[in-house]
């Protein structure tokens, strides 16, 4: 299955990318996706623990099972205001 991945804030500079599409095996989780992304963008690895993850407009944890066509967003801690 394919999922779209969006990067925000300085993760755009870290990856040099605003969005990408990843192909995962059926039943793949966010954890699987992150591992694949770190292979492609090694600098993401160092930020793994502070990176927030959303699917659509909801926060999700690493065990979330992705579905075909979902939109995943990765971003650093938020700092509005």
């Amino acid at each position: 299955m394919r999922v779209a991945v969006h990067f925000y804030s300085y993760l755009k500079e870290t990856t040099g990318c605003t969005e990408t599409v990843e192909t995962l095996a059926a039943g793949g989780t966010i954890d699987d996706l992150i591992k694949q992304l770190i292979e492609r963008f090694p600098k993401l690895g160092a930020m793994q623990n502070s990176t927030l993850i959303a699917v659509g407009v909801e926060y999700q944890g690493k065990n979330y099972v992705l579905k075909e066509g979902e939109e995943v967003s990765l971003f650093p801690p938020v700092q509005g205001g």
Partner: protein
Amino acid sequence: MKRQLTITAEPINEPALMVQRAMSDGMGAVVYFAGVVRGTEGDAAIKAIEYEAFQKMAEHQFGLLFNEMEKRWPVESIRVVHRVGVVKVNEPSLWVEVVAPHRGEAFEACQWLIDEMKRVVPIWKKPLA
């Protein structure tokens, strides 16, 4: 509870927002916060802050916070404006107004919303020198 959320690249027009305020006869307290861009970030002088939002998610997350606020306090109206794009020093980037029957709950709800916003609403800033 009346809700109004505006995420905008336009300057925040405080007097206009004020004039649009409506409150019923049971309401006794208005608490209002403006967060303004300061001239320093850490030790460095800056000229502005550029705000980036994941707008659709920011709107959704604000909505969840408003739901929770409504459960916790008898707030009649919450209005929030957040700038995106470049906000110069001395200009407000955030404006929050809470209308409630009493002072205590209005202050509490307003501070809670700002704290939670800084935890969950996907907006980021980048200082510009």
